[in-house]
């Protein structure tokens, strides 16, 4: 279908952009439009105003410095996926990106837009929760940093105020020698995940796991860290019995009710399978001596 009527603004400064948002409580930000435009074409979203931020100065590009990746508001998925510096300091990003929709969608959709859309099955919010990324939001009253864990509040709901624009998202590099893995269960490649799991871990000289991080999407109203499973795995040799215990410890994390896509019990089984598989892959990729291979 065609989108419902709206007023359109294309500011060139961030101050104008946040002012437009502040003046109209039904105004929304338009970046890549790959979630918003389908919702509008379906008439599921009916904003009074679109504030198109593509011409706003200073919102393009990726900066990799001091062990962190700074993703600006208009950075497209495909840009981040193919960036050689990002691949070097954080190979998990490109691995996750393979699962985000399709290339033409990744050419247009923005990373920050996906974070602000906050679909609980989406991969980018999971990445930021897994690695404890930070978002920088600017409003008329000033700029503030929001931890990813506090940013995602519920289904399509974030800590971003209506008059704020997330101008940057910060993601750390992986620790030297860390192993990483991501995979998801979907009906078709490129769909939103029924369940997705990301894992990062390190191994000490004796092969024991440390710094284990696990997070999942598609199992709750937001992406969640699997803290109980992490605690079980830290300090172990990641033996089958340790993985069994981690899977048992994560069972309560599935709070998503049965829906048209699948059942909660299927999600619980898929989550367990993914945890076993991805911890294994990450541990194979982790260097034993703490240096990057």
């Amino acid at each position, binding site marked *: 279908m065609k989108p419902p009527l709206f007023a*359109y603004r294309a500011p060139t400064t961030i101050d104008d952009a946040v002012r437009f948002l502040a003046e109209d409580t039904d105004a929304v930000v338009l970046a890549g*439009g790959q979630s918003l435009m389908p919702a509008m074409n379906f008439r599921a979203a009916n904003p009074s105003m679109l504030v198109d931020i593509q011409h706003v100065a200073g919102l393009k590009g990726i900066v990799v410095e001091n062990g962190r990746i700074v993703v600006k508001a208009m950075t497209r998925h495909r840009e981040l996926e193919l960036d050689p510096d990002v691949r070097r300091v954080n190979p998990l990003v490109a691995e996750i990106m393979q699962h985000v929709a399709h290339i033409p969608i990744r050419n*247009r959709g923005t990373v920050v837009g996906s974070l602000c859309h906050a679909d609980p099955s989406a991969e980018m919010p999971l990445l930021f929760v897994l690695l404890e990324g930070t978002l920088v939001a600017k409003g008329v009253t000033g700029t503030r940093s929001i931890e990813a864990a506090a940013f995602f509040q519920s289904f399509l709901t974030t800590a971003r105020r209506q008059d704020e624009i997330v101008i940057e998202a910060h993601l750390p590099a992986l620790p030297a020698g860390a192993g990483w893995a991501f995979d998801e269960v979907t009906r078709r490649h490129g769909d939103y995940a029924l369940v997705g799991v990301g894992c990062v871990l390190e191994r000490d000289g004796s092969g024991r796991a440390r710094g284990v991080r696990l997070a999942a999407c598609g199992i709750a109203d937001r992406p969640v860290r699997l803290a109980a499973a992490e605690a079980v795995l830290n300090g172990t040799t990641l033996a089958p019995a340790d993985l069994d215990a981690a899977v048992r410890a994560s069972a309560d994390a599935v709070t998503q009710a049965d829906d048209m896509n699948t059942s909660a019990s299927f999600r619980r089984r898929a989550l367990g399978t993914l945890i076993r598989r991805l911890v294994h892959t990450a541990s194979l990729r982790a260097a034993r001596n703490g240096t990057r291979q």
Partner: protein
Amino acid sequence: MSRTEIRPLIPERSEDPRSEVALTVNGQAVRRTVSVRMLLSDFLRYELGLTGTHVGCEHGVCGCCTVHIDGKAGRSCLTLAVQANGCNIRTIESVAGEDGLLHPIQQAFKECHALQCGYCTPGMVMNILSRFQEPEPLDLSEEGIRDILSGNLCRCTGYINIIAAVRRAAELLGRE
């Protein structure tokens, strides 16, 4: 106005707010004043008469409307015409030569019988062309080609011949 009342006159043109857009389409500068909610797909078809860009689902799933936006494949149904202001747009009409000589990707589709009704073909070709133009190495395995094509739906040939056409195009373009 009540819902049952017969309206006296339907306006010829909508009363939507309008905005001027200036962009480049297939190398030509274009300037139009359009409704702010006009989709780029409708802009190309109804304002410029470039009906090679097809419209299937209008929510980004089918890929028929794929064009190049500043050199990269994108959905014209998920892009407003006003968003394309200042952009460089390329559509299927620009792919074959002036003399009608098919582009190697089109030639490969023809040779491999990779189209039947042809509705999805413009989007397929624009998507494949964009991927071929990226510096990123091509994965021409079955899985790699399926990944390239995963955002384009075909409802009649199936994908076997389209996958063969991508391989053939890579051959013709010396990308193997």
